[in-house]
């Protein structure tokens, strides 16, 4: 305990711009998580709708696709995509990446990381969305058909607004998981918070003080805890506001996110 709270071991935090260095790394993680989330939501919706379509071969194929990506360790996916991706793809990404992104995010390896994260998370989200849509009363879809709505109108006006509301909590908890999972991209040498932590604790950092590993990574862990707690607070808030606004209790889908937290009876 003495070692842990010894002020000398926390000196690194205030000396130089170490704290800023860690924050910059953390920002890379958050950005990767957000970009991956946006694309996973889009791809996940497409997957979920194809899995619910009437076309038998398509639903089977999509079902297998989803099950394979969901059941593979994400780290393995990241490594594999990185190693197997042709160099030309990475160069295409480096050329095409929009200019407002930072240099770290415009690196080709980020493209591999994003593909792996989207492959994995879109499969998980597709299952959440499917459950959200299927949990609706059958009558909803049938009534929409009887009213003469086309498929897209049915989805846009009747099914999705209700289904998506039910999947909000599960989606937020998946976003939290995704935020934590972005630390895994350090394995393919993307300069994010884990790498920055390693640099700080490495030997002879600028010939100056070497930061203690325990304290540096406790601090990094604290950053994640604060961010993720904020996210789950936000989701609770949205849920409560929605309840007050509509006067109904939404029955959320649970149990399909990557790591389930609760059983609702």
């Amino acid at each position, binding site marked *: 305990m003495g070692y842990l709270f010894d002020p000398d071991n926390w000196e690194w935090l205030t000396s130089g711009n170490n704290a800023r260095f860690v924050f910059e790394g953390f920002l890379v993680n958050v950005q990767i998580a957000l970009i991956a989330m946006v694309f996973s939501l889009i791809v996940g919706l497409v997957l979920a709708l194809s899995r619910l379509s009437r076309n038998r071969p398509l639903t089977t194929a999509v079902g297998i696709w989803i099950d394979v990506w969901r059941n593979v360790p994400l780290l393995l996916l990241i490594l594999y995509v990185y190693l197997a991706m042709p160099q030309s793809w990475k160069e295409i990404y480096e050329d095409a990446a929009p200019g407002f992104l930072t240099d770290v995010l415009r690196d080709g390896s980020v493209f591999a990381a994003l593909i792996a994260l989207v492959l994995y998370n879109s499969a998980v989200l597709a299952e959440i969305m499917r459950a959200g849509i299927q949990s609706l009363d059958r009558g909803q879809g049938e009534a929409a058909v009887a009213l003469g709505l086309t498929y897209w109108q049915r989805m846009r006006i009747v099914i999705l607004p209700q289904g998506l509301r039910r999947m909000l909590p599960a989606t937020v908890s998946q976003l939290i998981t995704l935020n934590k999972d972005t630390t895994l991209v350090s394995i393919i040498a993307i300069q994010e918070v884990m790498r920055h932590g390693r640099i700080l604790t490495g030997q002879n950092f600028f010939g100056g003080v070497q930061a203690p590993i325990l304290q540096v990574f406790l601090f990094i862990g604290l950053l994640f805890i604060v961010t993720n707690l904020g996210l789950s607070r936000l989701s609770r808030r949205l849920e409560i506001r929605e309840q007050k606004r509509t006067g109904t209790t939404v029955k959320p889908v649970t149990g399909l996110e990557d*790591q389930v937290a609760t*059983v609702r009876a």
Partner: protein
Amino acid sequence: MSSLVELLTENFGALASGFWVTCRLVAGSFILAAIVGTLVAGLRIAPSKWLQRLGGIYVETFRNVPLLVLLVISYAGLRRSGVAIDTWTAGIGALGLYTAAYFAEVLRSGVFAVSRGQIEASLSLGFDYPQTLRRIVLPQALRTVISPVGSITIAMIKNSAIVGAALAVNDMLKEARILNSQTFETEAAFFWAVVGYLLLTVAATIAIRVLEQRYAIRR
């Protein structure tokens, strides 16, 4: 295709030992997670506000921290600060304690799924609180949590790959990476690693389904 089979037959020993290491990691972490998770769940449903809060802090801390950070803290961090911890203790400890937070949450919600009336009935029949928990609540709670415990276990099998990457433990993924660097057969090496992980996750899925059919309470 032939290179796929060749890679397996020529390096069967390495791949099998990686598979076995992953199995041991998963088994050890599962036991630790089950024990710590039950204790934390006990704290969270204890009749004291302070104990509940303590359990809450445990869950929120370990659930919101990346496993990789936990692994670095538990091995490199502790070593540098003078605690002589070995890789297996650090790996199983970090993975087990991380999963325990999820375990505790699932158990707690399983307990809450048992209706209050049953607890009140049991108390009024003269059982004391621990007896009520042991005889009335837990048997029912355990049966409702079979399926979520299954998904936690599957997530833990997948997370065990992170242990191998962070520490010097030659698990399934690490063996595949070694093979890849020796043979440059990226597709084949990773294919067999995927097969290894799918074997474990599918086995877990089947086990859960059997347990569910036998014990689960349908509501």
